[in-house]
């Protein structure tokens, strides 16, 4: 009986380990081969770089022939600015929906939640026209506006649910002290919302950083390309240069890898907490 249980546990670990290997192997292959010479890449793709095959020629090429720093700065700017706007405006709206009774409260909540299920891409024809009319083609502002609209529905939804659970005594105590509603929101409520904000931040950030569609149609100029579009275009151009392709992929993977190492705990907690409800 006992030994059968150990056997069972062993099989479970074997399956989980195999799947983990399948999930990570392709990424691992890219990362190790990016640091090899062309000869090393083709002669022994599965080997780690050693003294003989080690080379960073791919990275030098990428940094020389593309504006990687520009793409990177663009992506950071767009993501960080959008994130700040989404978090602030979504928290404000969520607070109003969760706290105050006013006619149309439920309806407005539903209206804002619609966007969780309907992909914003389907409005691209009119979005492009709107951006042309506003004279914002090939600007990061265009991306920021569209991504803000894209991120708001889920952010408002999650934050409203969270704010409904904030105990009454805290805000009532503040109201008794005669503190006005804005101060209650910024000084009492926002700090309490921090755990939910971390989750919302990750959910908002990842699709923006990874998006190809809107940079491609709204801001494809050399100076406004984000990293996803930049890598796509670069690889399209240097498709036969394996060193450069592997290096550019590695440069795109590493920031996300670092971020994931730092924030995976919050992200996974958010994913599991959200679904329990």
């Amino acid at each position, binding site marked *: 009986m006992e030994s059968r249980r150990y056997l069972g546990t062993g099989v479970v670990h074997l399956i989980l380990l195999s799947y*983990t290997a399948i999930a990570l192997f392709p990424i691992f292959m890219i990362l190790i081969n990016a640091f090899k010479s062309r000869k090393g890449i083709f002669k022994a793709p599965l080997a780690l770089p050693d003294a003989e095959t080690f080379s960073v020629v791919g990275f030098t090429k990428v940094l020389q022939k593309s504006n990687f720093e520009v793409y990177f700065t663009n992506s950071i700017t767009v993501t960080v600015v959008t994130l700040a706007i989404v978090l602030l405006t979504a928290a404000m709206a969520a607070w109003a929906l969760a706290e105050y009774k006013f006619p149309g409260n439920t309806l407005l909540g539903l209206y804002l939640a619609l966007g969780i299920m309907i992909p914003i891409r389907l409005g691209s024809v009119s979005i492009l026209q709107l951006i042309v009319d506003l004279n914002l083609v090939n600007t990061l502002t265009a991306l920021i506006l569209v991504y803000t609209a*894209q991120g708001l529905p889920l952010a408002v939804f999650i934050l409203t649910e969270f704010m409904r659970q904030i105990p009454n005594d805290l805000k009532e105590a503040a109201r008794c002290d005669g503190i006005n509603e804005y101060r209650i929101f910024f000084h009492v409520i926002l700090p309490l919302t921090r755990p939910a904000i971390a989750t919302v931040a990750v959910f908002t950030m990842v699709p923006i*950083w990874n998006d190809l*569609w809107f940079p491609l149609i709204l801001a494809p100029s050399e100076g406004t390309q984000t990293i996803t579009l930049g890598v796509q275009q670069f690889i399209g151009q240097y498709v036969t240069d394996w060193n450069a392709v592997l290096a550019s992929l590695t440069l795109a993977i590493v920031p996300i890898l670092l971020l994931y190492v730092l924030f995976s705990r919050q992200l996974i907690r958010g994913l599991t907490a959200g679904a329990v409800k």
Partner: protein
Amino acid sequence: MMANDALHREEAEEQKSGWRDFPTHIVIFLAPATIVYTLFMVYPLIDSVRLSFYGTAEDGQFYFAGLQNYVVMMTDTLWSEPFWNALKNNFIFFLMHMLVQNPIGLLLAALLSLPQVTGRSTYRTLIFFPTMLSVVIIGFIWQLILSPLWGVSESLLGYIGLEAWFRPWLGEEGTALLTLSLISVWQFVGIPMMLIYAALLSIPDDLTDAGVVDGANHFWIFLYIKLPLILPAIAMVSILTFVANFNAFDLIYAVKGALAGPNFSTDIMGTFFYRTFFGFQLQLGSPTMGATVATLMFLVILIGVMLYLFGIQRRLNRFQL
């Protein structure tokens, strides 16, 4: 009675003046989010539907055309063939996710939730990592791994004696779409795994303890006690998969370009929409035809969401605790 009347009147008056005295702070809290969302999401979606009833003249002006675009899309083989091809491919893409991604996600979640498994958070974190990367990056990674030039897949198959099985799967008409679907499955398996795992965790222990007392093993407990309880989570995963699949574009565009080759065998609604809107080769792009494709995609997604909300979700609620 009198007092009651007065109270009613007061209430009625309060409601009447409700709009006039609408507290400013509520408006200020709600306005920024509502305005940006309305202007850059709701308006474009509605305007796209409107544009689908217009035609584009030679000089780029729009004119009202009624249902003409839809008639052309359904009857002109130049349009209807690629449309049905993209829709069919998109259903295959979705089916592959339902048949491969979600069962694997379920299996991994079930294994992770077993009581005796240690290191589950490490497994979860590692398996979820590919989901975080850009679809574009994933597409290129697999293009390299599957490339006959590099030979990584071939030599891996060689280890288990299946070298002869290797084909340039991404390049052949018969296998390209299935291969791309599996790449997408590989990337997103973490999402069903996480959501189903969370649902499994929320099942109270006393329910499964009853099974343990009765002498049932883990497999039977899973099948007869846990699985019925997590059906709502599985339904939610399915609808999320549906919406994401019918809105997909990046992977096909990165690996195959806008032409979704070979011979349009990997063309899905997203790439068809892009080509219609921006044009390709000799065909000029048309915003109004693009809007028509977008509206049709919108309808497909709407039908899926409605089926979920009114069919599956309602029936499943009866099972819930």
